[in-house]
């Protein structure tokens, strides 16, 4: 039956920021759909731990702030497998910092990973894919890229820029068979969110950040809510989607109130 055929059989994928959270869940999902996944992270042990859970996984250390390292990663994968079919530019960081207290150092530290890192991933993967017959690039944006997001000005600005970058990349690369789409999650219960709940509560003057999210999203998201979307966008089933944003937020951004 066609429904039982893995949709990513024998596809070669790179997932950045794959040591934990969304990146790890996406690596597991792509693997379960038949892809060979190269899990990368600045935390090499974490990447190896994720890769160990995969049927066909391997890992590599990669700091996406280092453009030459991203270029070398892509070149290595293409040299060994002859192709790169899927790039998930997922690596990202955050701090909880009011705008007026945000030093240039903090600002640039987040932009370096969340925007520069995505740019390097898109440009090197895009070039390799264009040369080998096409592929699917998935960027990890966020609903914070669409709306004001208190205490994370750097993160939200980077995600808005990632959405713009995704659209331009899609249009520039579509003639070469390369698709570029952005996933925009709401608040997902990863370490990134869980470990900062009390900081949000303190800075926003609220008692229970979880209750605020329950009201806005119905519930806190889970990494498993997002991972199948990445597999869909990576697969040929979404072959007419390009330059689009795909929101997964339990309805948070659909409501004005």
């Amino acid at each position, binding site marked *: 039956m066609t429904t039982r055929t893995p*949709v990513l059989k024998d596809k070669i994928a790179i997932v950045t920021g794959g040591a934990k959270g969304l990146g790890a869940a996406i690596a597991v999902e792509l693997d379960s759909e038949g892809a060979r996944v190269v899990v990368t992270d600045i935390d090499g042990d974490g990447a190896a731990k994720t890769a160990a859970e995969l049927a066909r996984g391997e890992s590599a250390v990669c700091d996406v702030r280092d453009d030459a390292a991203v270029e070398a990663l892509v070149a290595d994968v293409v040299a060994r497998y002859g192709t790169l079919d899927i790039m998930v530019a997922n690596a990202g960081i955050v701090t909880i910092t009011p705008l007026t207290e945000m030093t240039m150092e903090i600002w640039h530290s987040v932009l370096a990973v969340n925007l520069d890192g995505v740019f390097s991933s898109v440009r090197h993967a895009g070039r390799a894919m264009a040369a080998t017959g096409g592929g699917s690039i998935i960027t990890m944006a966020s609903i914070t890229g669409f709306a004001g997001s208190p205490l994370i000005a750097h993160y939200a600005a980077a995600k808005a820029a990632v959405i713009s970058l995704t*659209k331009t990349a899609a*249009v520039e690369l579509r003639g070469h068979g390369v698709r570029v789409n952005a996933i925009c999650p709401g608040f997902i219960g990863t370490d990134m969110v869980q470990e900062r709940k009390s900081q949000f509560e303190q800075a926003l003057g609220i008692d229970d950040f979880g209750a605020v999210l329950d009201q806005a999203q119905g519930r806190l998201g889970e990494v498993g809510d997002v991972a199948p979307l990445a597999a*869909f966008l990576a697969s040929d*089933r979404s072959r007419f989607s390009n330059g*689009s944003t795909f929101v*997964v937020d*339990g309805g948070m951004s659909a*409501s004005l109130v």
Partner: protein
Amino acid sequence: MLSDLKDKRALVTGAAQGLGRAVAELFLERGARVVLTDIDADLLEKTAADLGGAAHAVVCDVTSEEQVAASVRACVDTLGGLDVAVNNAGIEIAKPLVEQTEEEFDRLMTINVKGVFFGIKHQTPAMVASGGGAIVNMSSVAGLGGVPLLGSYCASKAAVLRLTETAAIELRAAGIRVTAVCPSFIRTDMVARLVNPFEGATGANFDDLVAVKQQRLGTPEEVAEMVAFLASDDAKFVTGSHYVLDSGLTGSLF
């Protein structure tokens, strides 16, 4: 597996042809049982027969609240419940706005907007009784921006997005997700009918426009894949959102 719809009980409106038919066909392939509705009884019978034993035909004019309610009852009677509904039935008018008549405008709005409203309204209690569900509404990139000759169609598809968002928020606690799909130009009879009026009114070559803006026409099967994803449990945290498929048309300034 991705976008599995095994044992889902589904209703698709406007299913005799075009996008609706493609959605029904893919749903069946993914394991769903499907009630197809359409106003064109003859074509609907033929389509349902083509699609085989798990496809059931129910004639329905979506502008009649009574008929929409009856089609949902028929679905529940036939399939034992309702898990997925696709509000797809719609028409177009391809004329400059100032040439569209009140009757034409009202008819389009009644089918494209009120038909979706009736759908959501009557599908909801059946889904609540089934323990939750997913509604996917057919919008369009025409709901996101202006298109010459399609003024009333654009307005109707924008209205579908606002209905989708509000329904998503109101129905979330009931376990019902409501989403929309926004295709650009797809290889359907509806788009084929646009070519002559469009070229006559704008002087532009339609094929060239498609090639520049979206490389090629999309296919009904590609739209159906996105509907199937949104209808499936793989999209369990997606609600109130509209997913575009347009090969970059709305993503580019040029």
